[in-house]
């Protein structure tokens, strides 16, 4: 039976998305991303010279600072920083400007569930705004597993607490590939998972169910991103 959600959304329906870029003056790139009430601000300070202590000088290095809404930086924030850093490192081209450090600062404005995916989307938007060379964009989604086996997308805080388990999944965004369909080997590129973090126990096929539903949602998310960025281009070219 269909499960009903407080705010009346269908299981696969996302909360209203809003993304605005170039909102701060000091950083080289900035973006604010909100999914429903969860709102995150991301700022990127462009490639600065020199890499940190244990980093590899031949590659560009990323430094992540996660500013929680309140309270000091605990272990959870450190884990988010690590996940975000590795995700961003995998989608950016690292060999373009070696021996540089790009610092990405994530400021949580309000947390109403699926905070990490919202932060990843915000970080991608900010990186694009800063003009950091990237292979492809990343699209993040949170899939919640209800106790009766249904998968719910983009839960808010209450739903996240109520559900038995949830998974943060990050996919590459769907590319309007110009190459003929059969050229990419095996499954098309955007079916691969960049990052997956799960909380709570779920069976193996439940996990695959989450991945399927999450992947289906990436199409709408990528479309939103593409439209938002192009529309952004037109304004800046007009005002530029």
């Amino acid at each position, binding site marked *: 039976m269909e499960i009903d959600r407080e705010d009346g959304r269908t299981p696969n329906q996302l909360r209203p998305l809003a993304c605005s870029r170039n909102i701060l003056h000091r950083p080289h790139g900035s973006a604010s991303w909100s999914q429903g009430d969860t709102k995150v601000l991301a700022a990127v300070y462009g490639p600065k010279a020199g890499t940190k202590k244990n980093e590899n000088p031949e590659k560009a290095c990323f430094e992540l600072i996660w500013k929680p809404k309140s309270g000091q930086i605990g272990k959870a924030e450190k884990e988010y920083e690590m*996940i975000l*850093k590795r995700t961003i*490192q995998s989608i950016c081209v690292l060999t373009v400007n070696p021996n540089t450090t790009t610092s990405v600062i994530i400021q949580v404005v309000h947390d109403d569930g699926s905070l990490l995916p919202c932060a990843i989307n915000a970080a991608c938007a900010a990186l694009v705004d800063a003009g950091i060379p990237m292979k492809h964009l990343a699209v993040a989604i949170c899939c919640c597993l209800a106790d009766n086996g249904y998968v719910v997308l983009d839960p808010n805080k209450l739903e996240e607490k109520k559900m038995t388990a949830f998974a943060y999944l990050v996919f590459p965004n769907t590319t309007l590939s110009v190459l003929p369909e059969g050229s990419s080997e095996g499954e098309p590129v955007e079916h*691969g*998972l960049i990052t997956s973090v*799960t909380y709570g*126990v779920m069976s*193996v096929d439940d996990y*695959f169910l989450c991945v399927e539903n999450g992947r289906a949602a990436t199409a709408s998310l990528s479309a939103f991103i593409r439209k938002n960025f192009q529309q952004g281009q037109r304004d800046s070219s007009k005002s530029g």
Partner: protein
Amino acid sequence: MGLPDSSQDLSSEMEVDAFRKIFPLRFFERHLSESLRPDGRPLGKARDTIVNLGLVSSADGSALAKIGYTTMLAAIRMEVMTPSTDSPDEGCIAVEFHMPPICSPTVRPGRPADAAPVISKRLLDTISSCNMIDLKELCLVSGKAAWMGYLDIYCLDADGALFDAALLSAVAAFSNLQIPVVALNDNGRIVAITGEEKQDNASITEKEAVNKERRKLTLKNIPFSLTCILHKNYILADPTAEEESIMDTLVTVVLDSSDQIVSFNKSGGNALAHTSAIKSCVELAKKRGNELKQILGEMDVD
């Protein structure tokens, strides 16, 4: 990974370790093509694992886990706390993962390693989400006193797959845990009744031992974890530190005794995890889980 291809003519007459140092990825890929690894292990095989229990006399439960060279020492100290009002009859577990400067060259004495808080957070999530321990068993006097278990894990030698060894040592330490016999003395404080204290402890009579029978924790749902590396279409199980530094796509699968996924962690890395790769990772993890269950099983016997 665009390493210059000029290595073709160079590598012919260079001896092995120089080639390994200068072109690490080519060195590894040449091994992978024969589905072998530099230390002779096939791709899917984990390093040999040793667990021994009860090494630290000053702790209530302790264990040493060694996977290949990666060595973890876990110890549990039981202390008494007043439980919080919203869960009056539940104790709690505090997990802390330390990477002392002795374990790897990258760790400086002053600043803690940046991987340490991440691993301790994941350990706490794993242990609590698979509810291996029923927190109700940690209760002494409902509402007034309960056990707080301080689990401290020290990495003595960091050679890759730190999370697997840490989880294994934590599980082994819990299986070795001996909860001290305690009693409530007159002014409401919990006091341990140790053997030789019995005679001269005058007020022993009216304070009955609160937890005479519950000395061992029943571990219901034991989690086992396996870390694999995805590289092109190879999957390497249980990587060493060198392999982790060269190929950076790490997937950690944690299964519990009923083969449910407790956590499936893949953070970044330039190889994408397709469903086929995920399936084979889970298979490897199942196989590894049985191996570890068997090793821990022998432990409990002796």
